[in-house]
């Protein structure tokens, strides 16, 4: 018997009976992690797995549900819209995010201010941000009013409930995920390299092309992949501001669940999940991306 009162699991960490056949200290980390691992299995992983299983065992074991997808026009259109939206949004984020990342890294006294502006939307829920774009893009929304006031259009045009609205709102929502990894990469560039380049007679543009851009590539790759993977799974924003016929994969899945069409919903979910995982697997192969990913996920 131990003479010292102590929490049992922690006591195991150091007390070592000389003749113990099994070293309990080795088990302590696993015992600490076990409650959460069991919890995640029971309330998250197994439910998702059970649902996905419906794609291959409904009504009996078969891959037919996947085979059908090759002829499924609805699926193919939806899949294409989803990829198309994700690519557009990712490109938009890259184009808008890079200058901001550079601005953030270059700025001195303004940096905290810029950071707050980047983080404020980051901290606001997707629902609220999508709602904000409903307010702005609606028939009598600010954008239409402004365009009319400027004389560019005569009567309100339809922006809300079009693919454009989805793209604008998604870019707005995903932009911080692009900015932060790029800013991270830019921050790690040794400033003396830039000074050296201009000392060697490079114009600012040449310095950018030949020094800054290549060195920030890992951040760009990380931001691009992160943005793309997140964009693939978007549901709330396209449902709120997108067009009624521009259905993304997530929306199609939700629809099928509403119709209790579980086998089809599960098949689509498996495709969506596999696409996301495939892209992440590719990402880990790229040099430098793994690290940039890790630091930006914090």
């Amino acid at each position, binding site marked *: 018997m131990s*003479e*010292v*009162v102590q929490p049992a699991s922690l006591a195991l960490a*150091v*007390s*070592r*009976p*000389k003749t113990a056949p099994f070293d309990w200290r080795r088990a302590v980390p696993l015992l600490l992690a076990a409650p959460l691992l069991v919890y995640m299995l029971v309330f998250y992983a197994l439910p998702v797995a059970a649902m996905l299983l419906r794609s291959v065992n409904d009504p009996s074991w078969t891959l037919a549900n996947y085979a059908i997808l090759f002829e499924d026009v609805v699926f193919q259109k939806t899949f294409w819209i989803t990829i198309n939206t994700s690519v557009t949004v990712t490109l938009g984020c890259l184009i808008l995010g890079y200058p901001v990342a550079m601005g953030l890294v270059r700025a001195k006294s303004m940096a905290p201010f810029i950071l707050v502006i980047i983080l404020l939307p980051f901290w606001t829920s997707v629902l609220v941000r999508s709602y904000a774009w409903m307010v702005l893009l609606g028939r009598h929304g600010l954008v239409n009013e402004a365009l009319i006031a400027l004389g560019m259009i005569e009567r309100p045009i339809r922006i809300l409930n079009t693919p454009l609205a989805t793209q604008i709102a998604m870019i707005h929502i995903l932009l911080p995920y692009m900015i932060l990894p790029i800013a991270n990469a830019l921050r790690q560039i040794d400033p003396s390299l830039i000074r050296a380049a201009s000392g060697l007679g490079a114009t600012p543009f040449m310095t950018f092309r030949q020094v800054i851009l290549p060195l920030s590539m890992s951040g760009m790759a990380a931001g691009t992949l992160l943005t793309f993977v997140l964009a693939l799974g978007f549901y709330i924003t396209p449902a709120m501001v997108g067009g009624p016929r521009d259905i993304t994969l997530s929306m199609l899945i939700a629809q099928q669940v509403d119709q209790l069409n579980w086998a089809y919903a599960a098949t689509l979910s498996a495709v969506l999940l596999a696409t996301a995982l495939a892209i992440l697997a590719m990402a880990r192969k790229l040099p430098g991306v793994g690290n940039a990913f890790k630091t930006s996920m914090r």
Partner: protein
Amino acid sequence: MTVAGMNGAGPGPIGRGASVTLSDLEKTYDRTSAAAKAVDGVSLDIRSGEFLTLLGPSGSGKTTTLMMIAGFETPTAGDIAIDGKSVVAMPPYRRNIGMVFQNYALFPHLTVEENVGFPLKQRGVPKAERAKLVAEALELVHLPGYGARYPRQLSGGQQQRVAVARAVVFKPRLLLMDEPLGALDKQLRENLQLEMRRLHADLGITFIYVTHDQEEALTMSDRIAVMNDGKVAQVGSPEDLYDRPDNRFVAGFIGESNFLPAVVRGLEDDVVVAECEGTLIRALCPGRPASGERVTLTTRPERLRFADGTWAGTEPPQNRMSVTVTEAVFAGERCRYMLRAGDGTSIVLKEPSSAAIRRRAVGERAEIAWSVADTILV
């Protein structure tokens, strides 16, 4: 029910220091690979109340040895006994050993007072008593009145003193220190070396001190165990190690040494006669090497003299050799000469500088001399 480690705490006179016996201690970190042993068969008898230093280059296994004594590493083989009782199976918090870490490991979220009071709190010492003992300990390290500060508000030297106060406040009979002065600048280090010695004398407990700095080891220790590659190369008093190194590693690691290749020609009592550069050199030798054996003789640069110099009332020394000066450097208190013996062995000679002594020029031929007692066969 007893509280762990309570026996050493509380008021009253401090007992004498603990004795520590390491027997054939071994530690291998990575058993899967054929990696070298971090500690490889260390046996040491550390006496009660002794100031023993583990000295050795980085990676020689000093920290590992200390960690095994403290209980943070389990020996792969061998035994550790404190006051004759094996402690290998005892967890660190029951060993009642004080420890000072290289980076001090002060708790950043606790004040100085709370840091020093920490071991007392663990032993259930009542608050009032604790405050008194903490104040005494801070007094001991010359930091009274700093109790309310946080570690980050102290300088490196002050943090070091707090770490010492914390390690001795519960009156352990053994104090372990792993390069406790390593992070400080030279001036501060020298002051604190003296303070550590004083502390050792005041407390009367056993100190095991780890350093890679030979000067520090020579200044502070009663005995030094020189470690190399996980083994103890030699144990002895600073004088022993400096004047009578057992082997080439110790001779080279502690202070500067000249190594002269030689061939044994004969024995005279406990003095060996060897031929070096065509001349016969006499050296002290514990063993009895055979005639004709190739050996290395070692001698300290400051024990060599130019033979035409003065010998302050003593007999001119017996060992002599002809050399050529290849380099002469004036270094303030000393002149340092690089010399070349007949067939190319280089020899360093250090001479106290004096305006009265003629300085040698490069290329000059000279004869050097030194005594038999300063020549060791290794």
